[in-house]
């Protein structure tokens, strides 16, 4: 087994009458050491926590009661996502309209939501008309995009009207909440907010959940 090469050859004759000294071998049996070594390796491999936790930043707005100080958003650029039970996502564009003949309350899943965000974003960007926008309002954004080396820095604020409103309901899990926030990062949605669910929306979700076969 494992060994260190020891001692030279067991010598030449020293002449008659000279007793040969008994040479002890310097070979050490390293098997137990190797055993122990691998035992320790196994132990450390199993206990190692290689994945360091990371963090996702979340900024919340201050609660304001004054209507004048509230942020105004264009109705056409708003996408409201509501998180419900069992990874279901309900959404509508603009204002909620549920009544006779009109219904923009739709349903998707956590997996399908990305496409909806992308579609809405493309739609809002496509509607961008520089003539109607105050050019000063997006100078900062253009400058920061230019600084970052974005070749399309001129387009930096084309999505300025695009706002996603996230409304998790009581049954939504924390995982879904984080996933949807992550989705904002993945799709580079610059404006999004987490808002409490309205009464009407709550009832709609309840009604949809009740009508679904289990």
């Amino acid at each position, binding site marked *: *087994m*494992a*060994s*260190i*090469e020891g001692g030279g050859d067991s010598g030449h004759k020293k002449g008659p009458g000279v007793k040969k000294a008994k040479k002890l071998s310097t070979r050490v049996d*390293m098997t137990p*050491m*190797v055993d122990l*070594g*691998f035992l*320790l*390796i196994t132990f*450390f*491999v199993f*206990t*190692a*926590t*290689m*994945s*360091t*936790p*990371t*963090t*996702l*930043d*979340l*900024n*919340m*707005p*201050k*609660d304001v009661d004054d209507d004048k100080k509230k942020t105004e958003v264009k109705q056409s650029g708003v996408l409201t996502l509501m*998180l419900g039970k069992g990874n279901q996502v309900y959404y509508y564009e603009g204002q909620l309209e549920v009544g006779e003949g009109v219904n923009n309350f739709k349903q998707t899943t956590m997996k399908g939501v*990305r496409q909806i965000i*992308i579609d809405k974003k493309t739609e809002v960007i496509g509607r961008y008309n520089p003539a109607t926008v105050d050019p000063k309002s997006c100078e900062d954004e253009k400058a920061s995009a230019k600084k*970052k*080396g*974005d*070749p399309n820095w001129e387009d930096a604020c084309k999505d300025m009207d695009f706002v996603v409103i996230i409304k*998790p*309901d*009581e*049954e*939504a*899990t*924390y*995982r*879904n*909440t*984080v*996933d949807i*926030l*992550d989705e904002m*990062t*993945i*799709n*580079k949605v610059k404006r999004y907010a987490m808002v*409490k669910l309205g009464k009407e929306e709550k009832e709609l979700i309840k009604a949809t959940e009740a009508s679904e076969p289990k």
Partner: protein
Amino acid sequence: MPSIKIPRKSTDTDMTPFVDIAFLILSFFIMATKFKPPEPVEIKTPGSVLSQKMPESNAVLISIDSANKVYFTILSEKEPTKFDDVINEINEKQKLGLTPAQISNFRKTFMVGVPFTGLKQLLDIEGKEQINVKQPGIPVMDSTNNQLIWWIQASKNAFAGEKLVYLIKGDGNSKYPAFEAVIEALKKNEEFKYSLVTSLDDIPAGSALDLELKRLK
């Protein structure tokens, strides 16, 4: 006829390089291993694509477990006096009447998940033993008695003038109202920036973020 001699080769291989490598790997793992601090509750965090590192000092960790119970932890390895500042303020404001022994035990307390009325009892238990105690969680759901507000206020005062990060570590299966209540408590203290603790996920290929990162490279 001359017989062909097959030289007998020794099966004894020299294992020295093998052992060398083995011990090299061993020393790597010893150095790279960081033991998980003992946690009284297991929390499985959801994944996110962001790769900011979690701070280990100057932070307040608010944990939510899968049963929606809320726990409070102060992360301050370098300055243990911060623990005393926080517990002293809680003691004073809530008139708990903690003994000096209980106050010093707070340094060894990894997680607080009890209402103020149960704090005395919790701090009577030796720091290491607390892992075995089931804690009921800090009451947060009742907006008139959101006790987390006091804990945050106390730590805010203890870290006054320093950078303090608010970490929220929630279990993936916990429900949203608990998270909302935690945010509510932070908002009451005029704190609007938080970091959510997550594990690392891959960035989906072809997404806007993926394209931007590729361009930057």
